[in-house]
């Protein structure tokens, strides 16, 4: 899954989708995930990075990550071309 390349994300968690004008607020973990996605990290790399940074179990990240990706999709923030 890839995030739309033109999404702007600020450090404070403000997200802007120039394609349709939607804006979002995101929390710290979400901001980290989006930033890493924009850097083309793989999902494994992203999960590892989260585990290193936060006090959380791997299984929790695993589940939350999948759900979060779905949520990005529901909000039209994932690119539909390719995988």
């Amino acid at each position: 899954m890839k995030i739309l390349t033109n999404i702007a994300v600020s450090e404070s968690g403000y997200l802007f989708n120039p394609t349709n004008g939607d804006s979002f607020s995101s929390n710290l973990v979400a901001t980290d995930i989006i930033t890493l996605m924009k850097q083309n990290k793989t999902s494994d790399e992203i999960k590892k990075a989260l585990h290193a940074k936060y006090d959380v179990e791997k299984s929790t990240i695993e589940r939350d990550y999948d759900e979060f990706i779905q949520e990005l999709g529901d909000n039209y923030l994932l690119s539909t071309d390719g995988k």
Partner: protein
Amino acid sequence: MSTETKEKLRYERPMIRKMNAGLMNKFGTRTEYQPTSHIDTVPVKRIIEQYGSPCFVISERTIRKTYQSALRAFKTRYPKVQFAWSYKTNYLDAVCKVFHQEGAWAEVVSGFEYEKAIRNGVPGNKILFNGPDKSIAELKQAIENESTIHIDHFDELYDLIEIVETSKKKAKVAIRVNMDVGVYPMWDRFGFNYESYQAWNAITKIMNCEKMDLVGLHCHIGTFMLTAGAYGIAASKLCDLAVNIKAKWNKTIQYLDLGGGFASTNTLRGSYLPGNDISPSFDDYAEIITSTILNYGFKQEDLPLLMLETGRALIDDAGYLVGSVLANKRLSDGRRATIMDFGVNILFTAFWYEHKISPAQEFTHHSEDMVVFGPLCMNIDKVRESVNLPLLNRGDQVVVHKVGAYNMTQWMQFIAMRPNVVMIDMKGEVHLIRKNETIDTLTDLESIPEHLKTFKF
């Protein structure tokens, strides 16, 4: 922010929220939430460590404070006031005893509650015996103990007329009166109706029976009454009966009992405004009740004692339910759901109230709308239909507020066991006041017929 681990940050589920400026949903945009990390100086975390999750917590300090403020509201306006603790609201002995220490009598509605009051050391003549179900044996016991029997229906009245024929003591009685107070639906299934002269008819029968002493008139017009004015109507109708009794038989009625029904500050389900903003205060109720009686024209020496059977408004605030997040999930329509380790089995009042829930630990400013489910495998097990709460992680602890009334009496043993109940005393010490149930609590009551004892697959 986590203070426990220096190296790693406190984790919060990743969340994005679309910002649609200006649009407010039904629930407002308010996130009033502060963590409730302590109850009366005791850390929630410690309570859960020691007593498990979930666990009911009762603040003795809040009970006393609430009782005293209710009493003050009435005593500053009227010379003779007496509260009788409504046992059904919360009949844990420790809770009842706090009320009795404060001076409240007991108001009971069954033989079981009556027994509890006696065991708690309440003198018989300080017990008001209400309700439609009193056995002959219970009526006899009440007469013997000089408790006041609040007669509910004619069949009970006839029972009493028969019983007193052979008893040595007179029966001290009151009648429960139902009436139109402008609030619908009208509660007319208990007691004798005022408007149709049924009440007057019952009074006449009692006055004609030498071995009954009519000491009081009682009403309980409903529960969670949001209009204080209804009590003015109720009080004036009871006054009318008392004045007519005086005129006809020269009999002075000792007390008028206005029952319970004052609203607590909980928010009713479906209400657009929070309970804090719309529930009348003790002062509002006291003002209308006492001014009605004082202005009715009683002679000073005939002024009746004002009796009150306030339940929920005296105990709701003092009760908390602490619990934990079992799981988070996303529903098919994208809504968030949080599953707690407590449900409607122990939080019966979730059917009536939009209970305030606060996290017990620090959280960020991010929040989301969610459904809060209980742990039961049942569709009805919903604690909040929709609530905006900070992001909660699995294992996070939460505090549900204002759960003191009716939960610890109407809770069900269904699917899960009933949990521990603790009381925090005035010094901040925690006491176990009801032990959690175990499987033995239940199976000890069961027995298995011989032919069912074994089976093979």
